[in-house]
């Protein structure tokens, strides 16, 4: 049997559109991880699994509008992000209050882990305190590890705006974190 998993996104999309529905399973498998993280970090929290599933179904129906030649991953994540935001549009205050609801830090174990956990908690708190548009950009760039171009596409903004929001967000986080001595002590590690 042919190994569909070795095919590129463009070829898989073309095959799905030509009626080879099974090729879509490869696409779903390939992007489940990043779709779940995107959903969880950009508003869906604990509903990430539902949101990602819904997004994959909508992406399937929209494949005919996908422009051949453009990158598949950011296009898919745009749909995931839209779905995640829709899910929580009616509950925006909750999203502002708790960043990444439903996603837990590793439980504190030994002393050292507890300290590391505290640093992560501080970073997470500082990130959560940013204005929406700066936080979303930093989430895409650092938590989802998207590049500038992908981030621009997923958030529907210009690449130059990604740059400026990134630098404003980092600056703001830096001053928030500088208020905590914990980071100075552990800063070198």
């Amino acid at each position, binding site marked *: 049997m042919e190994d569909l998993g070795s095919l590129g996104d463009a070829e898989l999309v073309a095959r799905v*559109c*030509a009626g080879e*529905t099974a090729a879509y399973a490869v696409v*779903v498998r390939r992007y*489940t*991880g990043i*779709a*779940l*993280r995107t959903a*969880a*970090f950009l508003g869906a929290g604990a509903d*990430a*699994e539902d949101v*990602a*599933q819904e*997004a*994959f*179904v*909508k*992406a*399937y*129906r*929209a*494949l*005919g*509008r*996908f*422009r*051949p*030649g*453009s990158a598949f991953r*950011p*296009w898919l994540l745009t*749909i995931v*992000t*839209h*779905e995640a935001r829709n899910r929580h549009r009616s509950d925006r205050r909750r999203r502002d209050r708790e960043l990444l609801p439903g996603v837990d*830090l590793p439980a504190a174990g030994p002393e050292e882990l507890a300290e*590391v956990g505290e640093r*992560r908690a501080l*970073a*997470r708190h500082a990130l959560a305190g940013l204005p929406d*548009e700066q936080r979303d950009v930093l989430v895409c760039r*650092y*938590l989802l*590890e998207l590049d500038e171009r992908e981030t621009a*596409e997923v958030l*529907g*903004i*210009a690449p130059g*705006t990604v740059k400026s*929001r990134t630098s404003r967000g*980092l600056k703001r*986080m*830096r001053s928030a*974190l*500088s208020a905590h001595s914990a*980071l*100075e002590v552990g*800063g070198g590690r």
Partner: protein
Amino acid sequence: MAADRTNAIDVERELRLLAGSLVVPAADLVDAVMARVVAEPPPARRPRFATAAGAAGAWIRTRWRATALVVLGAVVAVGAATPVGAAVARWFTFGGVEVVHTPVPPPSTSVAVATSSAAPGLSLSAAAGRVGFTPHVPAGLPAPDTITVSPDDRVMSMTWSESGLRLDQFLGRPSPLFVKKSYQDIEFVEVGDDQGLWFDGPHELVYLDPDGSERRETARTAGRTLLWIDGSVTLRLEGAGSLDRALDIARTVR
């Protein structure tokens, strides 16, 4: 010193470490997704332009290919199943807009430019901050009466109530943002150095979600409209009346 202290914190590193510590529960979505899509027809990869297109269609096709190579760099395929069924003859994407030719007029023939909005107006800089691109401003017109941004921050609109003008602008994307359904031929025009399309009659204007679903509740019949692309931004000017007047205004947009 404060500056030394802040320099000591590598925020990017803290963010990367945070990323590594955030665990999103794994899930296998393949079976659930495939169970839902397997019974559906293949996604509508639209056929290339209808073979039955007449001489006018052939002209448009040729011109469009040239335009697409210059402006979009990518040609969009077309499909049999469409929102209005087999009646659709031609389909393509121009900037952030999908243009669909239909053989029938739009459902409503009353045309009104939507120049008023219930949303409170914004300053130009506030609107620019929301949409994330530098807005284009027509130097040949007075300051707009209102500036608004769509709830999802994707479309900025300026309106001039006295002259009945409306200028929408948005970023072109790998998927279109609007679908325009026109039963009349459209005209390819030059707007300065940019490519444009002129819709010389009523057409249906429908907003598209990122997943391509049409937002029917906001669909409306739009009048004569000039559509053009400037860099990464797609602009649509409605209410100018004639092509000449629309071009005059469009050429002053900076």
